[in-house]
């Protein structure tokens, strides 16, 4: 081991960093970016979960227990409460995906609570009063948060106002995701994430190479149009994304008993559009990257926000307010939402079309921009 030579190698390596300003800046800024995005995202608790409260409670001479529970819920920001006068309307809001849960207080709720408290005082027995919660459990994190929040409010009211305990039970009914477990929730997210990352990386590396080896110039000197070149790549990488998602779907079904409530083809269509858009994004960024090394640097910039902010592992409701607008700009957010809706809720194209439109726009937009950027020559 000759230290002089090792030193020379070290010097050369640092020098080449010095000459590649972008890479040097990346090395310093990347950790900052990572700590910031992880810090903010993990710091966030679930909040503003949309629920509908249907309060039919007629109350008693002493007032309404349901009103007290609602007041308690409203005092914190985990749930964002909408109200309805009608039981069916409340349930439909959940079915349509406008709310995560419908919380229903029956007309005789307060009367039952008072009976139960009276019974426990006298030592006789009476059935506890019930709060019904009809929940969309396609997102287990949110389902848990809603139920926990409701339990907390019930406890607080009972102990605070009546000094008694077991008079109310929360009865849970799952509208979607009857048997949903975390794997059902993860599978669509992981599928979208994998399709996006792989097509993005394949695309950016391929095009950096096309540019640096001169093959792109050569193609452009043939009758091939810019649109044909970009479209050809999109087709190939869209198919790669399709094969990938088929593999993930099959593995999730066979190994983890994930079931698909809706049409699997709709899931594949979603992933296909996401794959095409991601490859277009890769193409666009390839024109900024001078070499494969710089291309690779774009990966974490795309990867971390996608993991943290697109609802892959944590619900969007857990993304802090500051970063919530960023989620809306990440195409993966829409793809994961669409896949989950199809796989767990069993939704059809009629319900997920807004997500499909966003993804088709993303795909078409990146492709057009790519073709345009090729066309514009110095």
């Amino acid at each position, binding site marked *: 081991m000759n230290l002089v030579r090792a030193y020379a190698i070290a010097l050369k390596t640092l020098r080449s960093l010095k000459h590649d300003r972008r890479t040097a800046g990346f090395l310093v800024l990347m950790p900052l970016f990572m700590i910031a995005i992880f810090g903010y995202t993990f710091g966030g608790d679930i909040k503003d979960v949309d629920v509908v409260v249907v309060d039919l409670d007629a109350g008693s001479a002493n007032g309404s227990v349901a009103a007290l529970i609602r007041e308690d819920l409203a005092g914190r920001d985990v749930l964002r409460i909408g109200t309805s006068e009608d039981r069916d309307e409340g349930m439909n809001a959940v079915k349509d995906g406008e709310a995560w849960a419908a919380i229903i207080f029956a007309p005789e709720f307060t009367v039952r609570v008072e009976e139960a408290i009276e019974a426990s005082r006298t030592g006789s027995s009476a059935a506890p009063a019930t709060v019904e919660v009809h929940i969309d459990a396609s997102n287990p994190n949110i389902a848990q948060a809603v139920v926990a929040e409701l339990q907390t409010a019930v406890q607080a009211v009972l102990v605070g106002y009546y000094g008694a305990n077991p008079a109310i039970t929360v009865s849970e009914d799952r509208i979607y995701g009857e048997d949903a477990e975390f794997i059902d929730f993860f599978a669509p997210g992981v599928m979208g994430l994998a399709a996006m990352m792989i097509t993005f990386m394949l695309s950016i590396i391929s095009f950096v190479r096309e540019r640096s*080896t*001169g093959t792109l*110039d*050569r193609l*452009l*000197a*043939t*009758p091939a149009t810019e649109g044909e070149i970009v479209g050809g790549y999109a087709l190939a990488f869209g198919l790669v994304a399709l094969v990938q998602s088929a593999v993930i779907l099959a593995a999730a079904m066979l190994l983890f008993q994930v079931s698909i409530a809706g049409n699997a083809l709709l899931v594949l269509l979603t992933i296909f559009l996401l794959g095409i858009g991601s490859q277009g994004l890769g193409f666009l960024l390839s024109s900024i990257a001078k070499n494969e090394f710089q291309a690779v640097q774009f990966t974490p910039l795309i990867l971390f926000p996608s993991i943290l902010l697109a609802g892959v592992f944590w619900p969007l409701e857990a993304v802090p307010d500051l970063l919530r607008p960023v989620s809306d700009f990440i195409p993966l957010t829409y793809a994961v939402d669409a896949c989950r809706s199809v796989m767990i809720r069993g939704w059809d194209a009629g319900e997920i079309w807004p997500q499909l439109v966003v993804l088709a726009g993303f795909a078409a937009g990146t492709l057009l921009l790519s073709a345009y950027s090729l066309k514009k020559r110095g």
Partner: protein
Amino acid sequence: MMEERKTKDFPRSDSASGSSDQVVRTIGLSKSFGEVRAVADLDLSIPRGCVYGLIGPNGSGKTSTIRILNGLIRANAGRAWLLGEEVPVHVNICRIGYMPQEMAIYAELTVLENLELFAGMYSLNKESLAQRADALLDMIDLTERSDSLVSTLSGGMKHRVSLACALVHDPELVFLDEPTVGVDPELRMGFWDHFSDLKRAGKTIVLTTHYMDEAVRCDRVGMMRLGRMIAEDTPRGLMESTGETHLEDVFLHKAREGSA
């Protein structure tokens, strides 16, 4: 595009460009990259069936000229025609071949797959592809290696594949940018034999090189320096007019004249 078109006096487009036997023609072609003038006021006129050499040191504007003619960059001023059609060429593009300076073939594909790709770009059908592929593989002496990945070939073999890709659609006008750079002397001889064959078949070849010694084999030579054409003639004519015996000396002679 060519906003500042030159108001230079030239014949109307048809006769300027086209139906005549001038397969390549430029008038006042200029291109700058920022402060650097890569091509300055270049007039070119290359007749059909000619092997034309653009020669000059690195940075003299040869490659920029070729790239403008192939529509890969746009000139700032001047006009250019290929086969009678103004650049960027669309109608006649299938009659033109281009071999860029870099190897510019797909290392991760086989020799035949590369040929198939470029044949596809020119919409060749299966039979004509099969014919062309056989002929070209024979010409570049790689018939045995047609199913080998390009990445497993030697540098010289890759060069030959690159040449074959430029010829796959049997173009009548071929641009070869530094076709012989980094090619060993034996292979270079082979390349020049191919060029003679093409010429005999009536093709026009425009090539760039900075090997002055091989430029002697061209029918006509244009010497470029700092974006300008400093001399143009047959190699013999250039040597006679300057009294030099090597093109290299002709170039130095002309370069001195130019800066004097």
